């Protein structure tokens, strides 16, 4: 093929092929969801529930009722931040699976700190300050896995998971001992007054946390795709040996990735506490982290796509609570749907690769 012929080809098709690629990507992302909902319907039938009613209640509660929609949007905030956290780590080829521990520990510190700080500082200062502290807490909790990975090559999947268990336990210890609010009977931290929490948007129950989440995930997407720093991280992820070859400080970058990723997980914890709960009860652990991982994979580490999937999942989980209750199923049934999506994601991925190989042939 000559140079001229190639550039001509390029001139003729870029728009069409870009659209095609886009359409294929969207289809590849949506197909697992459709299949999962289909198989989920079969399982519901087998359990004696009416799948139509089940999905109807999900949509009605999670999307179509104003109260439910507010809950859904509010739920998006921590999920978006956790998604951003994972995008940073996964794009850099590092598996930070400890975000639940980082999230919870930061949440507890936020819950302990905020009610005390509002007595001495103005609220507009306390809220960002607590967020920064929460990020630092999250980052600190990832330091050990980061250093072990960066300088001793210890598998971060194991260490971050272990640190996550430790973090969850430590958070409970903190709630039950030093931060326990003596005025309540159940062990929990002091409660941040509703007026001191993150401001609500337009008289709704939605707080600005979702705006923070959106801003952060868009920023992270931009950071990873458009900046030199993001490119260096992607280089580490795509080919660590090339990173060494071109002279990148591999260890320092890895520590930075962990700090950023875990910091965002910590921020998610702060936003959830400062915006929604105001305190942390003992044994509270929403385990958003494990649920967001499949979504980030479905979105193929693309920040914009994560926004869509997070919203979808938020509808599913808010609406699912109602739908499960009405169908007489445990709330965990939503996790079955998520698991099915992941299985079908893997399948479509595999088929896509086979198709690609066939096309290359």
């Amino acid at each position, binding site marked *: *093929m000559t*140079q001229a*012929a*190639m*550039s001509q*080809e*390029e001139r003729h098709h870029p728009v069409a092929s870009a659209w095609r690629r886009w359409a294929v990507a969207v289809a590849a992302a949506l197909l697992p969801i459709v299949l999962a909902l289909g198989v989920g319907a079969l399982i519901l039938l087998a359990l004696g529930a009416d799948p139509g009613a089940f999905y109807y209640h999900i949509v009605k509660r999670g999307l179509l009722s104003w109260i439910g929609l507010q809950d859904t949007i509010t739920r998006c905030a921590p999920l978006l931040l956790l998604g951003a956290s994972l995008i940073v780590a996964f794009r850099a080829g590092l598996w930070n699976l400890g975000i639940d521990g980082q999230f919870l520990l930061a949440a507890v510190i936020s819950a302990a700190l905020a009610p005390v700080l509002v007595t001495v500082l103005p609220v507009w200062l306390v809220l960002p300050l607590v967020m920064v502290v929460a990020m630092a807490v999250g980052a600190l909790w990832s330091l050990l896995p980061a250093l072990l990975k960066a300088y001793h090559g210890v598998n971060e999947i194991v260490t971050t998971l272990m640190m996550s268990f430790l973090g969850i336990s430590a958070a409970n210890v903190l709630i039950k001992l030093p931060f326990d609010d003596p005025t309540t009977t159940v062990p929990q931290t002091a409660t941040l007054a509703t007026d001191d929490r993150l401001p609500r948007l337009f008289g709704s129950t939605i707080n600005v946390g979702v705006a923070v989440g959106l801003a952060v995930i868009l920023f992270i997407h931009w950071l990873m795709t*458009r*900046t*030199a*720093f993001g*490119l*260096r991280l*992607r*280089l580490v992820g*795509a*080919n660590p*040996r*090339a990173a*060494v*070859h*071109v*002279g990148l*400080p591999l260890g320092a970058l890895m520590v930075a990735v962990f700090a950023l990723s875990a910091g965002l997980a910590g921020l998610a914890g702060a936003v959830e506490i400062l915006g929604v709960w105001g305190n942390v009860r003992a044994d509270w652990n929403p385990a958003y982290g494990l649920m967001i991982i499949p979504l980030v994979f479905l979105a193929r580490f693309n920040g914009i796509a994560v926004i869509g999937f997070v919203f979808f999942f938020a509808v599913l989980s808010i609406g699912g609570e109602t739908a499960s209750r009405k169908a007489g199923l445990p709330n965990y049934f939503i996790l079955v749907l998520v698991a099915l999506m992941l299985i079908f994601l893997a399948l479509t991925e595999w088929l896509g690769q086979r198709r690609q190989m066939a096309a*290359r*042939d």
Partner: protein
Amino acid sequence: MTMASRPPEHATGAAEPIVVLRDITKRFPGVVANDRVSLDIHPAEVHALLGENGAGKSTLISILSGMQRPDAGTVEIRGRTMRIASPRTALDLGIGTVYQHPTLVPTLSVLENLMLGASWRAPMNRAATRARLDEIAALLGIALPEDAPLGSLSLGQQQLVEIVKALWRGEKVLILDEATSMLTPQGVEDLGRVIERLRDAGIAVLFITHKLHEAVRFGDRVSVLRQGRKVGSLSPEALGRLAPQEAIDHIVDLMFGGTADRTGAERSRAHRARAPGERMVIEVDGLRPAGDPDAAGEAGVSFAVHEGEIFGIAGVDGNGQKQLAEALAGQRGTEAGRIVLDGAAIEGLSVRQRQHAGLRYVTDDRLGEGTVSAFPVGLNLLLKRIGDAPFWRHGIIRNAEVERHARALIAEHDVRVPGPGTPLGHLSGGNVQKALLARELDDQPMAVIYNKPTYGLDLNNIHRARRAICERADEGVATILISTDLDEILELADRIGVMLDGRMVGIVANDGDAARRVGELMIGVGARA
């Protein structure tokens, strides 16, 4: 390495062909990889398929081995038209393939690797596997350490295991894809003996190579592919009539249609416009690369390279050349020694600082560390300048600048690629190397270390790369040329240092007697420095 090694009386081609490819055509978007290629493969005959990178050899093999389906044309096996729908079909039809890239598991033993092919339902049968292995090993005239982990074997031995695997089910056709590319000269010799035994045992061997002398050395019959078409072939009878040099001349004509630069050696040497200058650009004194206890003796490595000089580093692969190159580039620490670039000590500087000082390293591991396959070509061309102006401003990428830069380099170095946005992994080996050279030679280098710059390339790209090296040297670039190809060193270098066991055992001027002296130093005869 002459044709005399072939038994001239050997009856080849007498039998009916076992495989006949007829008018095989395979198109990819924008390219015709195979254009009506016809090929006969006879039992008890080595059919050498020769062609440059991108000539369509790999496509043809993948059709034969069931990885791809032809768009047109037929494959006849033992006289019957067959459809090779999958690699499994190919094996069922008795076609075994040894691919260019290893397909075995390094941590498993030789025996275990061979048991992998068995059905997952079948119980593992060590004794039977061992017996079959012994049987094939006897056929090949080789001995393999059956219980050693595969990774502990030399590359040559690993390849023998691949051959054993390809013949496991009594395959009668063996395809060897660029089988010599990983091997030492000794390994090539050993492989040659194995191929001869296979042929004598009646097996049809399709030997794919881009190296002319190998095609002539191993092939009973030679076919030449060029730009997807078979441009000619030499039957055993024709080959037998021609003297080796005549055969080579004939094949070169086929391959390059008279445009070949066969006297490239003389030409590129004559191309050196300038004699090396007096100014010392790189001085290496007592350098001991870290990390390899065997490499580098106590004294370390010392040499100097002048402005515009090509300093060749010869030696059999694995004698510390890579460690030396990495230590010079800053990728690997040093235990002792000094490196001076243009009067300033750089041994304490980082990789990036050395790059900024004007030192470049063209790695031999092009895909492993030199490039990122998933990234577009444009970014690969700037991989060592991430964050630098004008391509990034305040740390934000300026795609227009990146693309402009990429287009300029792609045009200048004739990288065959649809566009700067194409992932580098889609490029052929020769074009990856062009891109790599384009990157390293861009932006006024002062000194360049080339590690095996033409390894694995086809003739045209070899000449192109060598010309680029010479041109840069003429512009005053101090050049360190590490190569295991002695001819290349003799062709390009002004002076030649020889490495053995991590030490520089001698430095000789590249004059009339250099080949003999360098050869002696390489194998450990001759004076030690």
